[in-house]
């Protein structure tokens, strides 16, 4: 069955139907990862987005029961060049198409995804719609132009109630869930922490009443400024306990201390972004997924210092407070998917939590 992708700038692609049949509108972004599609499609940060995989062959190893980053898929749509018909892997339980159908995520395959990627590179992230052949292109374009994408994605993906993961040691981390990936929880549990996951809008007092030894600000979808109400809470927490922010959590931390964020042209999504640690000069290859970034110049008036920068575009990739045990990174040390070169950041966090001392190294 044929299906179309229509972009707000009027460009259309005709391909084959993949996944659920319902039409969908969202922000079209691309991810350059060559593996890890299951993790990507279930990463809550993709809420509201239609993800194009630049690697053309997706679904080769099927969908398994382990590699979910959240219980349900969060992407609004999936665009691939070719979806494997017969996945092959000892852990595979179903094909990508079957899974997308079951979970109600529409997709399109068989289009020139490289052309699409280059359009996004040139024009920036665009709104788009995956729909059947019957929809009128001009109508759809007009609608897309008028569509205001939701700014309540965090609310949509955050847990509604707090819940608890027992740990092996006495240290307790409260994970504020802006759309946390399972990978973060796994890494915290892996270090023996007891983890309490709380909704994104939990007030600082309530969190402090849980007696945390550390706070984890998770990743999540959308613009950090959409949830400005949480910023004072974060600041309060940071003044009391060690804080580690990842991705959206990093942006929120920066905003909380008075820095500014801005939308990037097309963001960073993939598993090959080089990030340089300014203290050691060491470069790590990182997993990334973000549309917004902290403005470097805006940090001058804050107590936050840049610890990491992107080697390619110089954008801010990591921050640390000058005297509090508070730090954050724009990328994903938990990987899932992607390179695991930065896992030691969890060790750093553990050390801070354990020692409750100033930052020695981030």
């Amino acid at each position, binding site marked *: 069955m044929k299906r179309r992708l229509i972009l707000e700038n009027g460009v259309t*692609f005709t391909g084959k139907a993949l996944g659920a049949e319902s039409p969908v509108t969202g922000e079209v972004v*691309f991810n*350059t*990862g*060559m*593996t*890890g599609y*299951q*993790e990507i499609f279930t990463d809550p940060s993709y809420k509201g987005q239609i993800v194009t995989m*630049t*690697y*053309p*062959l997706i679904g*080769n*190893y099927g969908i*398994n029961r*382990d*590699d979910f980053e959240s219980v349900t898929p969060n992407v609004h749509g999936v665009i691939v*060049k*070719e979806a*494997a*018909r*017969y*996945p*092959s*892997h*000892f*852990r595979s339980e179903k094909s990508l198409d079957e899974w997308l159908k079951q979970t109600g995520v529409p997709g399109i395959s068989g*289009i*020139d*995804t*490289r*052309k699409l*990627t*280059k359009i996004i*590179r040139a024009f920036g992230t665009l709104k788009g719609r995956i729909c059947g052949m019957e929809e009128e292109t001009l109508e759809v374009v007009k609608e897309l132009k008028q569509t205001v994408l939701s700014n309540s994605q965090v609310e949509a993906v955050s847990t509604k109630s707090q819940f608890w993961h027992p740990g092996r040691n006495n240290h307790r981390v409260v994970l504020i869930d802006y759309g946390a990936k399972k990978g973060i929880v796994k890494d915290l549990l892996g270090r023996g922490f007891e983890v309490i996951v709380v909704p994104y809008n939990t007030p600082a007092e309530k969190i402090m009443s849980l007696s945390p030894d550390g706070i984890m600000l998770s990743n999540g979808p959308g613009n950090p400024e959409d949830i400005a109400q949480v910023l004072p809470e974060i600041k309060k927490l940071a003044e009391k306990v060690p804080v580690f922010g990842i991705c959206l959590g990093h942006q929120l931390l920066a905003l909380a201390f008075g820095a500014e964020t801005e939308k990037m042209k097309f963001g960073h999504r*993939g*598993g*090959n*972004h*080089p990030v*340089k640690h300014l203290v050691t*000069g*060491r*470069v790590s*290859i990182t997993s990334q997924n973000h549309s917004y970034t902290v403005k470097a110049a805006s940090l001058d008036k804050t107590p936050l210092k840049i610890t990491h920068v992107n*080697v*390619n575009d110089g954008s801010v990739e990591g921050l640390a407070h000058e005297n509090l045990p508070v730090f954050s990174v724009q990328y994903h040390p938990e*990987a*899932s*998917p*992607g*390179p*695991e*070169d930065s896992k030691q950041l969890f060790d750093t966090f553990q050390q801070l939590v354990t020692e409750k001392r100033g930052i020695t190294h981030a």
Partner: protein
Amino acid sequence: MPKRNDIKSILVVGSGPIIIGQAAEFDYAGTQACHALKEEGYEVILVNSNPATIMTDETTADRVYIEPLTAEFVTSVIRKERPDGIIATLGGQTGLNLVMELSSQGILERYGIELLGTDLEAITKAEDREAFRKLMNELNEPVPESDIVHSIDEARNFTQRIGFPVIIRPAYTLGGTGGGMAYSDEQLEEIMANGLYASPVNQCLIEKSIAGFKEIEYEVMRDGSDQAIVVCNMENIDPVGVHTGDSIVVAPSQTLADREYQLLRNASLKIIRALGIEGGCNVQCAIDPHSEQYYIIEVNPRVSRSSALASKATGYPIAKLSAKIAAGYHLDELMNPITKNTYASFEPALDYIVTKWPRWPFDKFDSANRTLGSQMKATGEVMAIGRTFSESLLKAVRSAELDLIHLMPDKKLDGEDLLKKIAAQDDERLLYVAEAIRQKHSLREIHEITKIDFYFLAEIAGIIELEEALKNNSDDDECFREAKQAGFSNEAAAYFTGRTLQETEQRQENLQAYPVFKMVDTCAGEFESETPYYYSTYEEENEAEKSVTPSILVLGSGPIRIGQGIEFDYATVHTVRTIREAGYEAVIINNNPETVSTDFEVSDKLYFEPLTIEDVMNVVRNEQPDGVLVQFGGQTALNLASELEARGVNILGTSLKNMDACEDRDKFEATLSGLDIPQPLGKTAVSIEEARKIARDIGYPILIRPSYVLGGRAMEILYHEEELLTYMERAVRVNSKYPVLIDRYLVGQEIEVDAVSDGETVVVPGIMEHIERAGVHSGDSIAVYPPQHMKESMKKRIVDYTVRLARGFEVKGLMNIQFVIQHDDIYVLEVNPRSSRTVPFLSKITGCNMAETAVKAVLGESLSSQGYSTGLLPETDYVSVKVPVFSFQKLRSVDITLGPEMKSTGEVMGRDESLEKALYKGLIASGMDIPMHGSVLFTVADKDKNEALQLASRFHRLGFDLMATEGTADLFRQKGLPVETIAKLGTGKPDMLDVISERRAQFVVNTLTKGKQPASDGFRIRREAVERGIVCNTSLDTTKAVLGVIESMHFSTEPIRSKAPVMI
């Protein structure tokens, strides 16, 4: 850290001749490295013995030494040059072993030379099996259960403990020489014996077989500050058990989930850090298809064949960056040369899939054992890029030049034969896997036999479904389009739809079902990229825009194979450079990932495509070049000329008509008789009957070959009619489309000439004389420049013939002529209106860059305006020899006898003041261990006995002991030479095999006796000598030359007033 300023000059060691396991990839690596170091202002000194490389061009380094890669010669270069640093990791295993030898001999220390890049300790840890295993244990990285063994008994102890099958890998060898998989005690003994011998330290690793696991490679880079990245990972379609050089490989991996990808990535990075590699490194892993259990198989602490493949597959130039790292740079200080906007410290993201298909020499070696195992057998490889697996795979099949239009074997098999074939794990397996799917065998059944992952099998099944669809809906245009998108060639589509090729091409045109071109940019489109490196695919957007500058298209030479080696890549690169200098845009099409010509920095635009008429026409359609140059890419390119011209493409240089006149026997004869130049009697036959008649008319012995072939494929000398009949049945399918050429075989001195002509002026840079008489393929002969035994008048006649031939055939560009001189008469054997094997050799020794001169001439700059006039260039004072190099040790059951069919894989050059010195260097460089004393075993044909006697007496005078088989021994004895009679096989003890296997003989001279002694006896003797590394000559001419060298190295030790030596 920026580059180091405390070093000024750097010695780069090359990899020597092309042999199986070490091909053009090191020319690419070395050339890149030299350029990278020069770019940084270092003085670069290069040593390599292989003249057919771009690397050994004067412009590549500040000083280039074409000398044998032995400690002796490299030390003398070191003494002369006193470099500050040396790089060991760019010259393959040869370069690595050599630098390790220099280090252990204390040479590096004595001359204060620092080893740059990866240090020796790291190299030893990776190369020495025991050290490596110890390190893996420390790192907690799993390695298959194994043991280091030094004897067959130790190996037996291991298998008693672990069981069969086991893999045996000799230490410090390249391409797994001497290794193999053993399933029984008998095999264990045989492989161990070979392995211990092949290893320079008599050490083998014996390990539990993990055959059936997925084989995954990671190409990793690390710099001096411990930053490490993965450039690329690759998955072998053939599971563990087939050498990775012989495997069909895809990049990136297709069947690994992210978790496994990262598991192996982490392991690879951990290992490269623990070893302390500075530069590129290759880590081979095996992972269980049913669990996450993995093993580390091997680490190559250097630039390798796989890194060349990874560089071309991703666009990330590993060798170049390795050289910069060796000079002190860190990855984040280096720009990504592809995007020019991003840095080298990142991991390439691909948005296409790459398939590598090896090229094996089995088409030349009928008798060779085609089964693939742990010892590499391929001579070269091709790479193809597509947006889907099927597109990439089908392009790879077309690129490999197997005469296949599709993933479909030539010969049909079914039933048990078919299943046996796919179980055999040979070079044709994947073709027959497709055939088995076509014949409705279940994927499960095929998987059980081959262990090939279901993903790949299902994708191939998808191709077969499309074939069916084409057959059943031959008029359905959508179906046709889908097939084109899946990578089907027009020929394949024509075949399955039952139409002609012409109809299919017309249909393609009507539908405008043409591919577009996409860029290889290392970053999947994320960043803007400057690099004009393209591949075709059936998508929407075309990224390869034609520029306003007029362009010229150059066709490359495809995979390295016997008969068409790196020499043609050398010519291609010079062609491209000259075109650019002339102000045109140089566009190249080639498919060999190992070569310099497919380095995206060489041309203005690189199209990585199969060299078939359809694929070339796609590029022509896109680029609209002013013309196409076909004469530099060897026979591959030349074969496309007529079809290109038929499609209206302008062929530059020598016209198609004249090229055809060189190839077509009758036209050739007519032209020659018009020019009054003699050639051996001969005729073309299109049937067996006709062949018989012609042979009778011209008389035996005859030289027979199919027309339009390369490297003397299927060429033989026949002495009797019965041999002719067997040949006609066995070797060729003869018909009016494929005639055979039959010539009178002339015994005489063979002469080879390369010339450049602009139609007017004809420059002959040099005449080369062959050591071996006519009958041995020119590529397998030792060539000497300038001729040592030729009268001036003879040279004049040869030049005169050359000039007449060039004008007669209206050659514009390069030509190569082979002559034979018999009783002072000169005959023309063949005229090739193209670049030849000897062009780089001759260019380097005469200083006339022939490819460049020829391209200029073709582009309109006459030779006279380039400063040349008709005739022979003045000869140099130095004598240069080109010595062929064979890979017989890798190819079991191949007969090493030299004949009209080419067998060598590469060549080296020796150059010095005298013929003997030059030959000494050439022979040493070719790997010959020239015995200075010991025993010589003669076993020669009756016709050669008298000549052998001359040689024997010279050996005797040098103090060698003589051994010979009965007849020969009798003759020697009659003439007063002391000789030990050795029994022929099966007639007593000790027989010839005993003498060789016990190494009692250091030199074997064996010539063929046709039709008398069973052919297999001679064969067994020759193979035994090869396996033992004993010099074995099958031509008395070679022996004579070697003898001359030995004599020149000997001081005479004669008593005063001695009796006269034995006179014959």
